[in-house]
């Protein structure tokens, strides 16, 4: 019985390790993604600010915009509905893959923040670059 129990626990551990290595997704800013030259087809999360004036609505619900960390930029293409808090000039995290043309094709766009609160990864990355301080919201961009 003890063997059975241990076997079950071992199976659970194996499952957890396999699942985590198989499904984890890295977070990069545009600069990091370019520096690491992430291969097309690799899933990752792209975070930064939505560049002002870059949002273009195309056919139907297709949207393109540019994510910037004020140093490097990356074009993003997305089909779907944007979250309520998505705004130009504000933080965003998108999950998807690069295509052969170097465009980030997102299947999920997160903007889980309000004026007080930025996505943590974005805030950290921008603080590293010195373009954003804790507690300071990019207020100029709020409509």
């Amino acid at each position: 019985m003890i063997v059975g129990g241990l076997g079950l626990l071992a199976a659970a551990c194996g499952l957890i390790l396999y699942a985590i290595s198989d499904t984890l997704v890295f977070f990069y800013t545009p600069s990091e993604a370019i520096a690491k030259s992430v291969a097309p087809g690799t899933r990752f999360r792209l975070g930064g600010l939505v560049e002002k004036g870059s949002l273009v609505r195309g056919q139907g619900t297709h949207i393109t915009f540019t994510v910037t960390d004020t140093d490097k930029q990356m074009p993003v293409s997305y089909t779907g509905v944007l979250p309520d808090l998505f705004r130009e000039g504000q933080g965003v995290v998108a999950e998807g893959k690069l295509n052969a043309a170097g465009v980030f094709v997102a299947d999920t766009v997160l903007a889980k923040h309000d004026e007080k609160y930025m996505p943590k990864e974005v805030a950290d990355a921008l603080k590293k670059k010195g373009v954003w301080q804790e507690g300071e919201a990019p207020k100029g961009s709020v409509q």
Partner: protein
Amino acid sequence: MIPEIGHFALILALATALYQFVMPLLGAWKGDVAVMRSASWAAGAQFVLIGMAFSALTWAYVTSDFSVANVYENSHSAKPLLYQFAGVWGNHEGSMLLWVLILSVFGAAVAFFGSNLPLTLKARVLAVQGSIGVAFLLFILLTSNPFLRLNPAPIEGHGLNPILQDPALAFHPPMLYCGYVGMSVAFSFAMAALIEGKVDAAWARWVRPWTLGAWMFLTVGIAMGSWWAYYELGWGGFWFWDPVENASFMPWLVATALLHSSIVVERRNALKVWTILLSILAFSLSLVGTFLVRSGVLTSVHAFAVDPQRGIFILGILTVFIGGALALYAWRAPSLQQGGLFAPVSREGALVVNNLLLASAAAAVFIGTLYPLALEALNGAKISVGAPYFNMTFGPLMVPLLILVPAGPLLSWKRADAWGVAQRLWVAAVIALVVSVTVLAFQHRGPWLAPFGIGLGIWLIFGSLTELAERTMIFRIPLARLSTRLRGLPRSSFGMTLAHLGLGVTVIGIVSVTAWRYESITVMKPGGTVNIAGMAVTFLGEAPATGPNYTADAGHFDVKVGDRKVTTLISEKRTFEPSHQTTTEVGIHTFATGDLYLAIGDKAPDGGRTVRIYFNPLAPFIWFGGVIMFLGGALSLSDRRYRVGAPRRARNALPQAAE
């Protein structure tokens, strides 16, 4: 003046908590009856004092006293009264005050209802409760004081995050906190038992009602949170494996394991060491949950507090309580007497498997939630572990558990006849198989595994009913005798049947929505129609709307089945004052077969609206099942045998005969 009274009451509460922590321990050590008795008075006084502090803060919110910094930052005079009230715990400081208020309620309840507890045990339980109170009161007074004043007082406040202005979310935190803090009672009992070196059937009976109560609150809290996410966030999903959701789900999984293992302690005097460990883990995970949500370490809508000092303080509390408890456990647990041998195929054996699977599932959720944080702390790499990980680990661990659930209660204690149990369950198995095959034959889309998921839910429902039928011998005795038989059954056994049945209902809801949801995301212009799941949804147009503290664009939609108009759905884009934040209000119509769910998005450049429409088959089952589980818990709790005042150690010193 009133906020100062609140602040002062809180300081007095800290002094009382210190007394409640130290003196009863000394009294129990020295055998001083009067000192031990005073623990109950301290617990009562703590409740009164924290109640005063909480009332003072509530008063400041309801009267919009913006000279209190906390009110200024989180409230607004134009906010509806319900949300001014709920605003008290819609922020970090207030929610911590609510946390200690609930802690003091539980402490006072143990003092008041525990009149039959042995004096030393009661004194020690209350002392451990007091120590938790000391830690959290210090935390509030030193890092998160809600009574700080502003001078000069501002005229108007900032307001509450609009997505939190919702009836379900107003009561979601109190429910979850009752669950989290309720686990502190099981924890205190475990600590006291370790100090005394004694765990027996009577101990298990005293702990069970508290664990059950906490579990019920957690169940409702999680269900409410999931329901809120479903209708408020506008994505049509019911569970996102967000760290904040996981924070409440981990204690629930461990509490569920604890509920089952404490039955073994009570009936068979076995699994004692493991049960004590589960009590410690359940409360530890509740503390971790509080830490995750409250310290701002997560990227999440719930993480209001962005203050590393607080994080370090909570981390200190975690280290002291979890580390201290585990150290005491390591030192004292080996001295607990083990008893009650059993064969692998037995009720005990089944409950061990239940515990192993639930604990593994909790571990999987724990690793998925905390691994990204740990990795970032170690080497700065930022990763995310999302739904695919959780589906891959949680699912395979739950399926064998769900298959075993109906068999467990039919197995007898000590040594069971597996073949006999299989014979009794064949009707339920055939029904489940027939349903699976029928669904498989009729489904034209969705994964081939989904029908078996439905079958699993049916198996749970009919398997649980089989157990009830066996107990009442419903098919073997004349109907006239049935009602006597039914009345003779303990309520806790109905409670168990209900809870397992509710689980089946939830499984069916989750499988249906996941496998067979219809989705349409299009740009619609007034007059345009979308056909979905046999319904025609026509966009009538937009009209402006106003609420107490927002303005909105309301999209109106006609829903027709064939030529018959069923309903008009309204979905709004609300813009809140004073923050200019926007939220989406979804329109939902519930049919017998599921929810039609509609949310408007952005304006398209050509004048249309992006519109998301979902048909979520059997979606209400998900939360309905949760409500059934809660009712099952309530029914068990009302059982005379578990009534807090009922058990006495003398009578229950021997293990109860198996029923």
